[in-house]
């Protein structure tokens, strides 16, 4: 009787699946995992120190530069349904940026938010209301004009982070799969203010503007957004954003805006030209490989900019008109020529763990000038170390060939508080 029982036990032991040796090692390692208790904080911030060198196009002379930046964000619940948001940045550069003071404070956001109900919200204050699904050029980012106060990098991510919102009253209502947002941003001042600690309301609120944004999910893969934007002195503009998955690794995106408006030239030179219908478009594809490399290819079109012939003519025309047009396009964060190509590559954990390699190429297709930017960024536990390199190349008068800085590099250390 005992023998069959022993045989059964032996068979059972044979059937039993012990964990594999590798699995056992992993489980023993997991046993040693420390208790980590992290609670969410209302604030976050970092300090960034940078030094580098830029080479002037005119004489090839290299100039050293340094920068110190402090960035703070606060998102505090004041009472059930009430939140206060503050985002501020202070940059000190040596030598100073252009004609600006060496220290520039950027009040990015400061607003109160009230969640009236689960699905209804009201916000009041300076808000960075940003729209658009493209990476290099955002035709539906209607409130971008005048928002840049301190330029620390040409990386599109940096341009979007380090900018000022507009003072506005904003309301949002949500339902299952959809949302409607309405905002009104009044005129508060006439002119931008370059004083170091100015809130610079004249840069973001120098005319009355309003915007409606509606989105509705059609399917799991399609969630379009429509926008309607108006500002004093210009007809309403329509906007449209759409993204969809392209297989397991791709995302296709399309961003369009259009409406009757004055041309960029007319706005820059303040001519009495009438309105005509202009389209702006950014469309492309992002693809991620299995080893965490994401490539984005985007084609951009600005129908309000000078066409190829006019752009080429301007490059060889009066310097004052050229400078005025370029300054306006930069202020409006718009493309000075009609067509551009944008390529961005982001490789996460490239070659070694915690090392990110990023690369960007912007090509003006009218004059073939280009901006090339490369970055290697290593993440430590509470800090980042980055090395950035930038080249502006092109013929005289071209978009990037005119930049006074021919090439530059900078090393950046960012420490998180």
């Amino acid at each position, binding site marked *: 009787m005992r023998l069959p029982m022993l045989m059964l036990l032996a068979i059972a032991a044979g059937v039993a699946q012990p964990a594999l040796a590798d699995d056992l090692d992993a489980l023993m390692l997991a046993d040693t995992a420390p208790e980590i208790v992290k609670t969410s904080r209302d604030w976050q911030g970092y300090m960034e120190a940078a030094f580098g060198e830029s080479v002037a196009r005119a004489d090839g002379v290299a100039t050293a530069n340094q920068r110190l930046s402090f960035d703070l964000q606060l998102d505090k619940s004041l009472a059930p349904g009430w939140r206060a948001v503050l985002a501020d940045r202070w940059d000190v550069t040596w030598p100073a940026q252009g004609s600006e003071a060496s220290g520039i404070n950027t009040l990015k956001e400061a607003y109160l938010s009230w969640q009236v109900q689960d699905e209804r919200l009201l916000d009041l204050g300076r808000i960075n209301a940003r729209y658009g699904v493209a990476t290099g050029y955002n035709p539906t980012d209607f409130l971008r004009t005048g928002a840049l106060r301190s330029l620390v990098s040409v990386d599109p991510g940096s341009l979007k982070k380090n900018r000022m919102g507009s003072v506005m009253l904003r309301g949002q209502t949500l339902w299952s799969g959809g949302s409607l947002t309405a905002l009104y941003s009044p005129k508060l001042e006439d002119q931008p203010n370059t004083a170091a600690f100015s809130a610079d309301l004249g840069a973001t609120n120098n005319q009355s503007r309003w915007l409606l944004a509606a989105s509705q999910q059609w399917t799991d893969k399609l969630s379009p957004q429509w926008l309607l934007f108006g500002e004093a002195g210009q007809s309403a503009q329509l906007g449209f954003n759409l993204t969809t998955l392209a297989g397991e690794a791709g995302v296709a995106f399309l961003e369009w805006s259009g409406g009757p408006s004055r041309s960029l030239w007319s706005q820059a030179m303040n001519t009495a030209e009438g309105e005509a219908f202009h389209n702006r478009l950014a469309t492309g594809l992002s693809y991620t490989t299995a080893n965490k490399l994401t490539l984005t290819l985007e084609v951009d079109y600005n129908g309000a900019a000078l066409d190829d012939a006019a752009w080429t003519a301007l490059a060889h025309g009066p310097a004052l008109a050229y400078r005025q047009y370029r300054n306006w396009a930069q202020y409006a964060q718009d493309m000075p020529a009609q067509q551009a190509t944008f390529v961005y590559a982001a490789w996460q954990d490239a070659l070694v763990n915690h090392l990110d390699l990023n690369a960007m190429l912007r090509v003006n297709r009218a004059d073939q000038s280009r901006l090339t930017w490369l970055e290697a960024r290593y993440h430590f536990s509470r800090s980042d170390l980055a090395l950035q390199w930038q080249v502006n190349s092109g013929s005289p008068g071209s978009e990037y060939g005119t930049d006074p800085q021919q090439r530059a590099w900078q090393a950046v250390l960012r420490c998180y*508080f």
Partner: protein
Amino acid sequence: MRRLILQTLLLCATLCAGVSHAAPSAQEILAASDAVRNPDFSFGLTNTLIEYRNGKQTDTSTLAIYSKADPNSSQFRSLVRFVAPARDANKLMLYSGKDLWFYDPANKASIRLSPQQRLLGQASNGDVVTVNLAKDYQATQAGEEDMQDGERQLRHCYKLTLAALTPDVNYHHIEMWIDTSNKHPIKARFFSESGKLLKTAYFRHYQKQLGAERPTETVIIDGLDPNWVTVMRFSDWAKREVPDAWLQRDYLPRFKPE
């Protein structure tokens, strides 16, 4: 004669009992193990990920997650807020099947991600939030066997083979071991379409949470490099009201877990 009648009655009773307690189907076993991992109401928890490479701790992340089952698909949709590390704090993610959005409060950008894009090291975006496997996979039973669990105890398990019902899921097929006595998921092996082992997961440290014994830790071992190990630890379980209107891209900037 009376003995024969009694034996016949006992046999009938046994057969009837067998009929009324038929062995559960593989799909029912899988659904029962889903119910062990996931409450049948909307809930929130904290997921702390600790990542090791070659025995050394290399990364930690803490996420606050709210999850709610979609009334149509019964699949979970989740809002995720990064708590740590500092460089990622307050970034947000919406996970709703294939609809995957990432929001960075610094640049106010809602970026659509493809399923292949990963925000964390080894764990895929789908690994960090909960899923009902029975909704996405067809289970077949491949026998019963004893299996060592995450605490190196032998457990008698159903062995199930799960085949993806749609190509829209993270893994082509899965092998899964589920305790026969209480339907606790014990271990799973995840495979690509080519049959390559992508990762192994152990569900362990069962504790009573939200009314049931649930695994509070998942150990993930990379299929190619067994020295790449991620510990996912679940804490702060709480029942949470999550309105359907919150589970969309346009609510992401507003989401702030309690």
